[in-house]
């Protein structure tokens, strides 16, 4: 298991990426690690490139922002363009293939139909699923950077209501990505 992770959650304003970053950091702390989270966003509350950065480490964190990402979650075309082909080949890129059509190659580049899954769960079960939470589940499933359990605990702490829906969303994202987790012992 890697000791240091630099994670970028990128997309558009309004997708809940800042909250996702806070949840990811909180979950890492619950897993007994150190974490630092920063965010950058435009002045508009919706639209525009927004990103949340989380550094997770077993040891002390010297510099708290991302220098060279190990994991990128891209939820918009603009976010994917910013990182695809510009980061190390070892960097895991997970992108929403239902929002971003196209053929993106790379041994660690994974398109997952995250938004389609959100819509599917709404139709099948009538759940008000949030893309950010489902994507965090997928991130955990594919990389093992934080445990599913810790994410659930972080959500419980952050939100007073809707825990069951969020738990199901997390699990759906996790299961979708789990089939080819890169670092988890399987």
């Amino acid at each position, binding site marked *: 298991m890697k000791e240091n992770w630099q994670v970028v959650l990128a997309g558009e304003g309004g997708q809940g990426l800042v909250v996702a970053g806070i949840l990811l950091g909180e979950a890492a702390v619950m897993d007994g690690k150190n974490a*630092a989270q920063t965010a950058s966003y435009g002045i508009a509350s919706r639209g525009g490139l927004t990103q949340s950065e989380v550094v997770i480490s077993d040891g002390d964190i010297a510099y708290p922002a991302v220098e060279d990402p190990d994991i990128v979650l891209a939820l918009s075309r603009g976010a994917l363009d910013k990182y695809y082909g510009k980061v190390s080949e070892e960097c895991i890129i997970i992108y929403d293939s239902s929002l971003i059509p196209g053929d993106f190659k790379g041994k660690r580049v994974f398109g997952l139909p995250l938004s389609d899954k959100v819509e599917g769960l709404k139709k099948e079960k009538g759940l008000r699923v949030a893309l950010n939470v489902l994507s965090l589940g997928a991130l955990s499933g594919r990389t093992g950077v934080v445990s599913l359990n810790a994410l659930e605990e972080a959500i419980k702490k952050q939100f007073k209501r809707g825990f069951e829906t969020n738990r199901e969303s997390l699990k759906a994202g996790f299961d979708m990505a789990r089939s080819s987790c890169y670092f988890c012992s399987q």
Partner: protein
Amino acid sequence: MGKVKFLQGNHACVEGAVAAGARFYAGYPITPSSEVAQAASDKLPPLGGYYVQMEDEIASMAAIVGSSLSGLKSFTATSGPGLSLMQENLGMAIMGEVPCVIIDVARGGPSTGLATKQAQGDVMQTRWGTHGDHTIIVVTPASVQECFDLTVRAFNLSEKYRTPVIVLTDKTIGHLREKVDVRDPSEIEIIDRKRPTCPPGDYKPYRADADGIPPLAAYGDKHLLRINSSMHGEEGFINQSPQNATALSKRLYDKIENNVADIGRIKTFQTEDAEIVIISFGISARSAFRSAALARQAGIKAGAIQLQTLWPFPRPQVQEALGNSCRRLLVAEMNMGQLALEVERVFTDMEVYRVNKWSGEDLLPREILDRLKEVSE
């Protein structure tokens, strides 16, 4: 036992203030400090404390001076433009010897310059913003844990030396979230102001003890408290004589400047054998430590110093940390060179270089590293 939380720097400052015993906040919210006001409004009332939203920063500063003199540890928070408005009453607090804490979460200036972006342009405003001969204590956290720890320390220094103390952070530290141990008050040293022990009739609010600091009564006590922002005698009545002006100014200056050994604090990274040492503070110090580590990998004997006390400049601590092999200093800051002026003044026997950025973005480890390589050749 304390609690481990995942908090924003701004929130950690409030946790630190509460742990130190602060029970009064008056402020006027401003980006990027607004979360301090928000957290203070959540935390203080349930503890029997007070949160007051004021009409502006002039009134905010006046309110914390008044509440402190009534006996409550008091604080406010702002950013550069608000600190400008507080300067008049900050001077009053210095002259009147009023303990209080001001949290300044710096942003890009001057004026409304870069209202939502990053800068460290308040180095000299915190030192010299209010007029007249004076000195002041400024502490500078570089992590969320230090936001907690150094806010506690700011209250302690403020109470001990009967003077205002500024906690200077920046937009990035204020909004950064990290793991923080919110220590229980029973686990930390907490200093309260000296109270008068003499009979009420003998009390003179500006009669200093041997340490240069007068005990402080509270308004409403049997010990009659008189506060005066003009040159005053021991009883607090105006005294404009040349002898008194000379002596009082000197006492106010000495009570802080003669105690740099106690007030000054730094954090070091591999300075012992370093040939070049980066001097920095706030979030730039995090970049500095990282770039010194990268420089070592590249064969440059670099070290770094974070100033946890910015003012008074912790000269003896920095001098002690620098080893015999150090000949060069690199001052890293997000402004056009303010701390560099002090470093150049103090270390006349060293070559002092600068690395600056004032674009509204953080100074990155690789940018400091590039400059290190440049000046190490």
